[in-house]
């Protein structure tokens, strides 16, 4: 898939995803070793975006499984088309096999396994799902196969590139982590954030992007309930552009604080600490 970590960062940059050393190396290793990549970190640092960028950079299909509490096998793996099965039983008096391919409904995981084209499988917000779902994933993640009791084992024709994301609201199981490479994505450094903003909002003047990155870094250092995410920094950049501001001075920050801080207590704190 990739030749080297440098190749990864180049090709991701070509689709406007600016990686850093650890992101590039982890993605490269995940592809080279054929292992799933677990990306963990605060909300809005670009974990999901990473999976999308990898898919785009390699020209692969993206299959996404959004996790939530109560997600089960029938939604994640496969389901039997019971209506069709019922009809078949009623229509033919013979004892047809109603557990065959034609009655199988594919769900994201099975689809990713059976896809003949290069695929990026994104299992988003894994920590939102119940612990049982992790059990469900184990077979897929270690052997790239799925066992359906009535049908047998289905092996991957082409190993998908698997990215799991998690906001670390709960600790994922040891068994799951052992099967994955682990990438902790933190808020970007000031320089990188400036570049990300410029990549996403190319019309923004360079020194304004610089100021923006610096201000956001200052905000993150305060003890906030919800630190501004990269996505919010980009929103902020767009806001400034729309307002036609050329500089990020105190009054501009005070006026547009709502774009990045979304708790009243956080805003109050920022006003107090930054003397707005």
């Amino acid at each position, binding site marked *: 898939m990739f030749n*080297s*970590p440098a190749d990864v960062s180049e090709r991701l940059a070509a689709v406007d995803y600016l990686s850093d*050393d*650890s992101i*590039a*190396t*982890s993605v*490269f*290793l*995940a592809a*080279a*070793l054929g*292992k799933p990549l*677990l990306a*963990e970190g605060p909300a809005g640092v670009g974990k999901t975006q990473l999976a999308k960028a990898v898919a785009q950079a390699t020209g692969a299909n993206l299959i996404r499984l959004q996790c939530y*509490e*109560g997600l089960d096998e029938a939604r994640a793996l496969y389901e*039997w088309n*019971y209506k069709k*099965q*019922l009809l078949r*039983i009623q229509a033919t008096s013979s004892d047809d096999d*109603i557990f065959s391919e034609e009655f199988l409904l594919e769900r994201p995981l099975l689809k990713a396994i059976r896809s003949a084209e290069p695929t990026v499988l994104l299992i988003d917000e894994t920590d939102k799902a119940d612990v049982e779902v992790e059990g469900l994933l184990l077979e897929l993640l270690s052997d790239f196969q799925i066992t359906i009791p009535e049908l047998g084992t289905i092996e991957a024709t082409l190993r998908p590139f698997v990215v799991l994301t998690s906001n*670390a*609201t*709960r*600790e994922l199981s*040891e068994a799951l*982590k*052992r099967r*994955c*490479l*682990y*990438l*902790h994505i933190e808020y970007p450094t*000031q320089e990188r954030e400036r570049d990300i903003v410029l990549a996403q909002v190319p019309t923004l003047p360079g020194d304004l992007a610089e100021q923006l990155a*610096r*201000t956001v*870094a*200052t905000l993150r*250092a305060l*003890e906030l*309930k919800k630190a501004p995410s990269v996505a919010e920094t980009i929103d902020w950049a767009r806001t400034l552009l729309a307002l036609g501001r050329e500089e*990020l*001075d*105190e009054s501009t*920050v005070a006026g547009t604080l709502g774009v990045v801080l979304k*708790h*009243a*207590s956080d805003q109050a*704190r920022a006003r107090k*600490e*930054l*003397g*707005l």
Partner: protein
Amino acid sequence: MSLVDRHVGFVHALREAGLPVSLAEGLDAARALRVIDLTERESLRAAYAATLVKKPAYRPGFDMLFDLWFPSSTSGMDGRPADDAPLPDLREHLSRLLAGATDPEMREFARAMVERFGRQPAAEGRQNWFSYSVMRALSPETLMARILQGVPRGGLEEKSTRQRVTANIKRFEDAVATDVRRRIAEDSGIERIARSAVRPPLDQLDFLRITRADLVRLRREVHPLARRLAARLTIRQRHGRRGRLDFRRTVRASLSTGGVPMDPRFRPPRPHKPELVILCDTSDSVSSFAHFTLLLTYALREQFTKVRAFGFVDTVDEITRFFAPGGDVSEALAKLATEANMSRFGRTNYGRAFEEFAEKDVIGPKTSLLILGDARSNYQPPALDTLKRLVKDARHAYWLNPEPRRQWDSGDSLATSYGSIVPMRECRNIAQLAEFIERLA
């Protein structure tokens, strides 16, 4: 040392420092070494981190050990003042670095400075290395004023510059410390210095020995746990009660019986928000633990709709009002210390606290009761019957004790007596708290 030896030694050291590195993960790391460019040190670090370090709390310890096992080469000394440059020039250079420098620049300068200022001759032919002498010679924190020259005062600009410089001073300190450790390791062996230098990972820090700086970092760990605890208690209530009929799954299940619905399926009922009552010991003997429990209380307060918190030393006071959701945690803790009425004589008295707590009559059949404390009651009457009644009235009751289990029952501890009434758990660090929460359901 060959690469294999180095790899094995490194993995070993990680395990010794408390990182759970499994055999499979060690093999993954070895495989990773075959596909990456070994001369790229940061790539190597990232490869080891991706395969071996699966929790952010382990990262600082990992980085420290990595720097010892895979020290950066000491070549390339260009672009910095000569070794014999006068001190003012060095400080000038440092202030430029503090205003903004890349990692290699910072590391290189730190290395040169350790070489110059960090050496202290010890016994014959040996030398000691210290970071404090480097920091004393250069005193980076006094450079702040110089860097702030030309920055408009009192505004956002000053604030963000200050913060960047402070962060960079910390980076410089870390770079110096890393290099000092590397030099000591060269003299006296990696294993020896590794053992003494690595602090336990954040989730294994003892609550009773926590520093203020740790607390700030712990705050971030506690929030997700509180959310988890809230979810867990909700799940417990969900078990055993049935919800509405799930028509689709019932029909599906009836296939095996020829369309006769023998086995009705139900949807899970809507989760009920449980009520949580927290009773925590806030006395001095457990002050750092108390600080932590208050953090936990605060986090829980945001997760539950109905949570009431009570603090006690020898008298009980409801402290829920200090933890309004959306409020500021540090302010809440400060107000709590000055305004709450939890201490009359200042000596912990669990018995009296339980009596008073029972009078408040806050426990009902829907309540989960969480007691946090070390069960040391200064030889006062324990009021076991009162506690028994409280526990009987509550839906669930748990006791988390911050003391090591082997110290229970020593001196004035009533751990076993209380533990026979309320299931008591040792809870000395984040890892144990997380385990308690995971086992709840």
